[in-house]
């Protein structure tokens, strides 16, 4: 954990690994009394990301309505508080499975359980939690919920927020709340579970999570179609609007597509054997060409597993999103950023999301920052967004993680104040 923090540019005052919700509560209250920032973390993957680790300064009213918003780093230096280093509350010891009834297709576990571990728990029952957002391979369940990011499977299975049934959290002022439940349909009271999903450690420390599970589909096939970049985008869009429902459509540029062409379109089919065979025949007929490769079963799973961990270790990670029919423009914008960052793109055609990663090999960081800002302006003009989740400090300081909030009329800062009145936890988002 300390290594992860240091890698994220945070020199923590101390790393705390509480073993129970009461210990988390004590840690939160102590940090509050000491006036020290406390950053919730799982295995530390997201520290430093999107405003979690680097804050705009204590007592800042979270910059509501200002350009750049609350997540802006660098306004008072890179360490939390401006006066001292933050503490980190790691939840990795809260990793027990509390309740798992396979026939209910629900599970309750400690927030610190690794998603890799969780997959092994579910496997013998032919079930899975289809979280395939960035870092959902080795990260923790709690971090997946806190980050709220989803991956290509969300149009088939719902996004992360659609599959979280209940949470136990410790708020920034030390209250233990148990919200939602462990049944799949529940409208009792206001939906605080959705508020916490994607709240990035700014409202509370998530200590326990109940999720909805799914049966693993009988058949898992990925068809890889090679082509040039423009052809790949057009082909991906045709699959997205085709009558045959597909589980995921990705456009992968460069060598990672593994088909020896400039770009590959990866079409994932999930379902019963008959259904997948039929879908495959119809997709191939619509494409007018046999796929360059077809991955089946474990090979297909492994291919997508690599996509989940695609950004791991990259110095720059950005996410561009707009409506799916603007995929060509979004990808164009992403390529420009990738060129400056010395990296690559990976597009989720169903959602209209393009991820960019880069290693910044001795690059011109000022030019990268300008490129990101230009990209953000272009995306915003089309109703889209560009967010950063990893970047060298000076780039993050110049660009900001999210580009700031929308027109929520002060709701964001009032919500932050309700759960974390002294800004003990991560800064509010955006």
């Amino acid at each position, binding site marked *: 954990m300390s290594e992860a923090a240091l890698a994220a540019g945070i020199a923590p005052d101390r790393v705390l690994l509480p073993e129970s919700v009461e210990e988390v509560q004590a840690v939160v209250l102590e940090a509050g009394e000491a006036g020290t920032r406390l950053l919730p973390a799982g295995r530390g993957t997201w520290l430093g990301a999107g405003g979690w680790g680097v804050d705009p300064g204590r007592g800042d009213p979270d910059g509501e309505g200002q350009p750049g*918003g609350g997540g802006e780093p660098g306004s008072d230096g890179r360490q939390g508080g401006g006066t001292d280093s933050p503490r980190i509350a790691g939840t990795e010891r809260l990793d027990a499975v509390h309740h798992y*009834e396979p*026939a*209910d*297709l*629900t599970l309750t576990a400690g927030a610190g359980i690794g998603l890799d571990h969780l997959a092994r728990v579910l496997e013998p029952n032919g079930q899975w939690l289809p979280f395939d957002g960035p870092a959902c391979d080795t990260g923790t369940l709690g971090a997946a919920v806190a980050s709220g990011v989803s991956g290509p499977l969300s149009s088939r299975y719902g996004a992360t*927020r*659609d599959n979280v049934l209940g949470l136990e959290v410790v708020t920034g002022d030390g*209250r*233990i*709340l*148990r919200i939602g*439940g*462990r*049944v*799949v*349909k*529940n*409208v*009792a*009271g*206001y*939906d*605080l579970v*959705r*508020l916490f*999903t*994607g709240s990035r450690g700014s409202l509370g420390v998530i200590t326990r999570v109940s999720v909805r599970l*799914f049966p*693993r589909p*009988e058949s898992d096939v990925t068809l890889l179609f090679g082509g040039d970049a423009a052809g790949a985008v057009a082909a991906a869009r045709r699959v997205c*609007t085709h*009558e*045959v*429902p597909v589980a995921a459509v990705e456009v992968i540029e460069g060598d990672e597509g593994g088909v020896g062409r400039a770009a590959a379109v990866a079409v994932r089919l999930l*379902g019963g*054997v*008959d*259904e997948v*065979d039929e*879908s495959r025949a119809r997709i191939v007929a619509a494409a007018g060409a046999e796929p360059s490769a077809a991955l089946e079963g474990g090979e297909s799973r492994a291919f997508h597993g690599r996509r989940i961990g695609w950004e791991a270790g990259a110095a720059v990670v950005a996410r561009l999103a707009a*409506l*799916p*029919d603007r995929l060509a423009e979004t990808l164009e914008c992403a390529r420009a950023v990738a060129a400056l960052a010395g990296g690559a793109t990976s597009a989720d055609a169903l959602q*209209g999301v393009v991820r960019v990663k880069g290693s910044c090999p001795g690059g011109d960081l000022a030019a990268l920052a300008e490129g990101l800002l230009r990209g953000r302006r272009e995306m915003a003009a089309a*109703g889209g*967004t560009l*967010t950063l989740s990893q970047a060298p400090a000076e780039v993050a300081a110049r660009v900001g993680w*999210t*580009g700031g909030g*929308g*027109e*929520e*009329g002060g*709701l964001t800062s*009032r*919500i932050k104040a*309700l759960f974390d009145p002294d800004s003990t936890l991560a800064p509010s*988002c*955006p």
Partner: protein
Amino acid sequence: MIPKALAVSLTGICGSDGVIADRDRLLVYESDALTAYRHRPGAVVLPRTTDEVRRAVQAITRHGLPIVPRGAGTGLSGGAVPLGGAVVIGTARMNRILSIDAANRRAVLQPGVINAELSAAAAPHGLYYAPDPSSQTACTIGGNVAENSGGPHCLKYGVTSRYVTGLTVVLADGSVVRLGGQGREAPGYDLVGLFVGSEGCFGIATEVEVGLLPVPEGVRTLLGIFDRIEDAGRAVSDIVSAGLLPAAMEIIDGPTIRAVEDSVFAAGYPTDAEAALVIEFDGLEAGLDAEAARAAEFCRRAGAREVRSAKDEEERLALWKGRKKAFGAMGRIAPDLLVQDATVPRTTLPAILKGISEIGKRYGLVVANVFHAGDGNLHPNILFDRRDEAELERVERASKEIMQICVDSGGTITGEHGVGLDKKHHMPLIYGQAELDTMWGIRRVFDPGDVLNPGKVLPEETDPAARAGWGDGAVGEDLAAAPAPAPA
């Protein structure tokens, strides 16, 4: 009645045909579909645009009156009942579909659009709107947003909040905010998700952006007939455990079957059966027959005496008829009906159903169950006659006991109808004071002055000064005091 000056301002904003103030015409706005709770509104306004809603909210709050937003009034929790002389803002005239963006499978609409009309408008594009509450031919999208409505097909497709991607909302102070929009990638808190299901307490949604799905290519519908309801419950658990994911699984119990078959809605279910289980699969044609055959086999193994399957759309509608018309049929055999909505873990269904039946017997009450079995979302309906005071008291006690066994099994008090007025006193069964206080806090983030739908969802706070003006009657008060509803 509202002050004359307010009536004049509202007429200025919404036109004379957009304000209802005479007593007779206000009658229909006294209750929602749970007619046990009735209170007359001060007035009803029917704006057409976001700006008219904004101005109406400002005018009403200037006079210090509370506001209750209302869609079609099909809710089943008393959520749209105007307490304290509130002014109802109805969305009936905000009924335009603003755009259907087929390329991105989304639509933008006004809140008064009827659920089924959205699917009808999307159909030429091969798309539909997935959440399908039983009242979908009458209920509005705005109401669905407020209640986070479900429906039979939510088993596979999820509830309203999965499909709402953006909202324009008028807050209690008359400000207009945009939440989300153009998909769901916007950074920041998921305020759209927080707003959906807020039961008219956070604001009035005046524009709604939703996601649409492609219409499934094929559908297979089965009807299993059982001599014991527990066996039907077991078939449901077995089907799910086997990894099958039907689009819907619905159970209709013996008393409900007999009510349906005795009515004009007769669907041809055997009247000596104790449960009928409707199972539906949808998706690509390929594979559907095999899935349906497997599900039918699970029904037989669990003890089904007969499994019917629909060969065409007409037969499919016939199999569904008993389920869809259950509420209407029950309305004919008893003057009053108490509808519950608890959700329990699916595996506890057989035990809970047995428990409900025992509670009914103990109190000498007829309890008819019709429910979303795949989700574990129960709808036990207690049939009674409010004029019989002793029976009314037994209904209250039985109702509380049923709720308690559902909560004890790991369940919740409402799966899709919402808390409203009817279940707010049951909230402490599932939440502690810290959670309830936090919900009050979040409500006041949106509505610091308790203007919107006061007296709903949350039990009154312990500090009476904070809640002055709103009665905290026991659950039965309203039931007993209200006049009997007109026969359905």
